[in-house]
Structures are given as C-alpha cells and as structure tokens.
C-alpha cells in the first residue's frame, strides 16, 4: 500500500514540475513575442476607449452642429467634423463600442455553433458526420461576402442582422477545425481507455475531448475577430449593416466617400480606426497561436 501511495504522490508531482517548466517556457516565448505585447496593448486601448467612450469623447456622437459642418481637424475637433457638423473623433470613439460588440458577439456565436457542430460531427461520425460535413462543404462553396449577403437579404438589412450574417459565414470554418481536432483526439489511447472504463459519451466529450480543442479555438477566435470587425464594417459600407446616424466605422466610411475630395478626414479616421484595431487583433491572434500551439502555424 505504501508503494502505491508513493506512486500516487510521484504522479501528482510530475505534471506540476512539467507545468512549471512549461510556464517558464511560455514566459520566455511571451517576452520574445513583442508583437503579441504590442497587439495586446492596442487592443487594451481600444477596449478602454469603448468602455470609457462617454468620458473620452468630447461631444455626443450623433449631435448635429449646423454651424460647424465639414470642418477640418482642429483643436476643438481633433478629427474634424462631418457633413452634419458631428464631431468625428467622438464618433470614432463611440464606433469602437459597436465594432467590439459586433466582433465579440459574432465571434461568440460562430464559436459556440462551430464547436457544437464540430464536436458532434467529429465524435459521433457516421451519418451525422457525413451530413454536417456536406453542409460545411456547401457553405464553404460560397464566397463569404455572397453568403453574408444572402443572410442579410433573408433577414433584412441592419447591424444585428449583419452581425448574424458574419457569424453564419464563420461557423463552418470553426466547425471544420473543431471536427479535425476531435477526430485526431478520439484516436488517442486515453479516450479509448475512458471509453473502456464505461464513461458516457457526454462525459468523454466534455472531460476528454473539449480540453484538447480549447487552444485551437482560442487562437481561431482571436484571429477571426479582426476579420469579423472588418467584414461587418464592409456590410455597413455597402448599406446592409448599420444605418445612419449610428456611429459605425463602415457606414462612416461610406458617407465619407462622397466628401473624399473636399473633406478627406471624414473617411480617413474611421478607416485608420478599423486598420489599427484589426492589425492589433491579428498580432494578438498570431502571437497566441505561436504561444499556445505552434503546430497550427500555416493552418489557421
């Protein structure tokens, strides 16, 4: 009995040492990964701007000021004003709320649905898998914006529907990645062992398989959030998403386009905001991938 107690202690200690080593390794990688740090800092700033928008923005984002229309950037309006005399800086700041909301929500929807479909397909296999895989193939057969446009055509234009459309577009990609990881995991001995011990499918899925897909999912969710923000802005730019006077970056760009030659600042600043946010999210996503799961390089 003493021997088995010892071995229990031993096995209990081994992973701890391993974790410490892994932690040290990650920390070293983290420090080396300055891109991740820069990205995280910028994402932090955008989040701060979104949370503190009412405090940061000097004006109301939809208040029209007819005495100061189309004013170039100045001390009182750092990014200038638009055709209705609205302060662009305030609109860009409030726009970060919409962008982050849309990005996070679309990402959450796509992640949940993708994980669900991917898990079910990968784990149960057979006809369920065949059906889900066919559906994924069919959805991936559409150029993504075209798929998003059908969804918007069905649901009707609007910011929420545009966001749902983008989530729908990304769901098959998530499902495909999850299915792949699940298939690879179910082949492993420890799952076989759990099954032999009589664990029920749900337990195997949640305790055995789910932990293995966490890191690819985190990486994928971070990498796609930037694209989701851009694509929702794109739908708004086309007039299928946010409608005026909502301070949404894409629709601000769309109106700014008409004043491009006379008042280029209207389109410039929301564009810079999108670019910075997206680059930051991409840096964080790339960094997280290298940190959590370098094998995913080139796959995600």
């Amino acid at each position, binding site marked *: 009995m003493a021997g088995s107690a010892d071995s229990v202690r031993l096995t209990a200690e081994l992973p701890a040492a391993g974790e410490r080593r892994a932690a040290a390794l990650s920390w070293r990688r983290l420090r080396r990964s300055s891109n991740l740090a820069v990205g995280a800092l910028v994402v932090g700033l955008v989040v701060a701007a979104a949370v503190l928008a009412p405090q940061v923005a000097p004006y109301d984002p939809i208040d029209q000021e007819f005495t100061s229309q189309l004013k170039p950037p100045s001390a009182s309006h750092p990014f200038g004003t638009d055709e209705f005399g609205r302060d662009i800086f305030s609109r860009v700041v409030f726009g970060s709320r919409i962008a982050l909301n849309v990005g996070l929500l679309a990402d959450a929807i796509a992640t949940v649905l993708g994980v669900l479909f991917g898990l079910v397909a990968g784990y149960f296999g057979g006809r369920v898998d065949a059906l889900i895989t066919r559906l994924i193939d069919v959805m991936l057969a559409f150029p993504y914006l075209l798929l998003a*446009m059908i969804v918007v055509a069905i649901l009707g234009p609007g910011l929420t529907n545009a966001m749902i459309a983008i989530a729908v577009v990304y769901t098959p990609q998530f499902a495909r990645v999850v299915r792949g990881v699940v298939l690879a995991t179910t082949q492993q001995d420890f799952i076989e062992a759990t099954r032999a011990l009589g664990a029920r499918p749900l337990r195997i899925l949640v305790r055995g398989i789910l932990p293995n897909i966490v890191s690819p999912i985190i990486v994928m969710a971070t990498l796609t959030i930037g694209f989701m923000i851009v694509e929702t802005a794109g739908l708004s730019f086309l007039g299928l998403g946010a409608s005026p006077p909502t301070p949404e970056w894409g629709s601000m760009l769309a109106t700014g386009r008409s004043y491009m030659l006379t008042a280029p600042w209207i389109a410039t600043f929301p564009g810079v905001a999108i670019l910075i946010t997206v680059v930051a999210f991409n840096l964080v996503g790339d960094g997280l991938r290298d940190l959590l799961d370098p094998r995913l390089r080139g796959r995600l």
Partner: protein
Amino acid sequence: MWKYVGRRMVQLVPVLLGVSVLVFFGMHLIPGDVAQLLLGDKGTEADLARLRHQLGLDRPVYVQYVRFLADALRGDFGISIRTRQPVIWEIGQALPVTVELSLAALLFAVVVGLSIGVLSARRPHSAVDTGSMVFVLVGVSMPVFWTGILLLLVFGGLLGWLPLGGILDAGLNVRRVTGMPVLDAVLQGDWTAVRSALAHLVLPAVTLGAAVMATIARMARSTMLDVLNLDYVRTARAKGVSERAVVGRHALWNALLPVVTVIGLQLGLLLSGAVLTETIFALPGLGRLTITSVLARDYPVVQGVVVIGAVIFVLANLVVDLLYAWLDPRIRYG
C-alpha cells in the same frame, strides 16, 4: 491525370446541389413572394393569383424546387423585378467585368507578391525584409473598401493620374464582344480605348489584389527561405550556377507550390472583395449587381447571382487544385 479530373468533377455535384437547395429554401424564408414584388401595389387579388399560377408559385415547394433546378441548369433564373430583364442576361452583362477585374487583381497580386517575397528572402532580416513585412502586415489588415478610398483619394483626386471610376472615359465607346472592357478595346484595335480601359482598371485591380498580394508575399518569403537552405540549392551554388539562376530557376519553382495553395484559399476573398471594389469604383460588375439587387429586394437576381457566384468559386477552386496536382504529381496519388 484525367481520372483525377473526373473524380474531382463528380465530387462537385453534391456540393452544387447543396448550394441550390440552400439558396432556394433560403429565398423562400423571405416574407412575400416574387409575384407580389413583380406586381407591386397595382395588382388585384385575381391578378396576383394568376401570376402566381403562371410562375408556378401555387405548386408544392418541392415541385417549385425541382422546377427551379431544371430551369437553373438551362441558365434560366427568371426575370429581374427591378429591370424586367432575364436574370441570366443581367448576369451576362456584369460577369465579364468582374472576371477581368479579378484576373487583373490576381496578376498584380502574384507578380508583386512573389517579387516582394523573393526579395525579402534573399536578404532576411535586412531593412528591405523588415520594411516589406511591415508593409505586408498592413496590406493583409487593410479593409478593401478603405484601400480603395485611399487609392482613389491619392491617385485619382490629389495627383489626378488615374480616373475616379467607371470603365471607360466619357465619349469613348467600344463594341461589346466579350464584355471585358480592356479585351474588347484590344479586339477592336482602338488604342485610345485600350489605354483608357487600362487606366480605369489599375486602381480597382490594385485595391482588390492588395490583400492577396500581401499573403502571397508572406508565403513566398517563408518558402523561399526554406528552399534556399536545402541541399540541392547548395549543390547548384557549389556547381557555380549564377545566383540569378539559383533563385530564378531552381528555388522559385519549388516555392511556387504553396503560393498556388494560397491563391486557392484567397479566391473567396477575391470574389468577395470584388463586391466592395466595384461599389467604390462604380464598375458595372457582378458585385454591384448583387448589392443593387439585395437593396432593391430583387430576389430572382440575388438568387441567380449567388448560384452563379458559388459555381464560379467552386470551379475556380477546382482549377487551382488541378494546377496544384499538375505542379506536384504526388497529390494525384494521395
């Protein structure tokens, strides 16, 4: 090779069937039907019933689907609610513009992307390399619609070098043969029109190709770096082959393979970007047709465009896969 082509073609059938099911039933979820939209507020109940009968909308849904499929296979997608023209005619007018734009964008992306990638790989971690990679990161993240607006502002507005949109200068006219503006101008031998059409194509092509170019550059750099360190390249150098030939003939060919994959992955981006690019530059292509139709609730056109778009996308992916199999015969037997 032909067996492989055949097998891949057969695999497309269920996917395309799925596409038609998804589009057809998706469009059925929209409240109101085509008969109502065609008539507007003018028709009486009797007119509506007659039109419904005429269009087969009073039949069971599955019968309607089979009819839709049979018609679609013959290229008949019904009539546009907005213009009252056959949908397929509308698509025929718009498609060549998008094809020409996409090919020009792809050409730009491959030529510039490969050049940047190879240059960076020749001198890794130099100023040229770092600069190009920052440029590439920005390129990947730039929203298409913003790239377009900025290019228009700088080269169209401030510098005035290139036109602000459209496909030809006012006053010029080219007889429609293929529907592709540049090609038609060339076929007609009208060099003023060729120059004008090319000038109108430059900014949209760069806008659309920028993100793909950036991805190709990144991919080309990393594969070139790998390949340049392989033994056969060292052997070639040791034999005294000039650096130019080593890079151009020996290494580049092997670096092309992943680039072809990237192009395949980016095709969707290209077709999607075309919608935005055509909107910015006022090009009468498939993208603009789609957006106008969605906004005008012209569902027959939306339906047709989406099906055709998916077919083109799937076929283009097939071409990329075949190209891949041709470049690397191992794929065929895998």
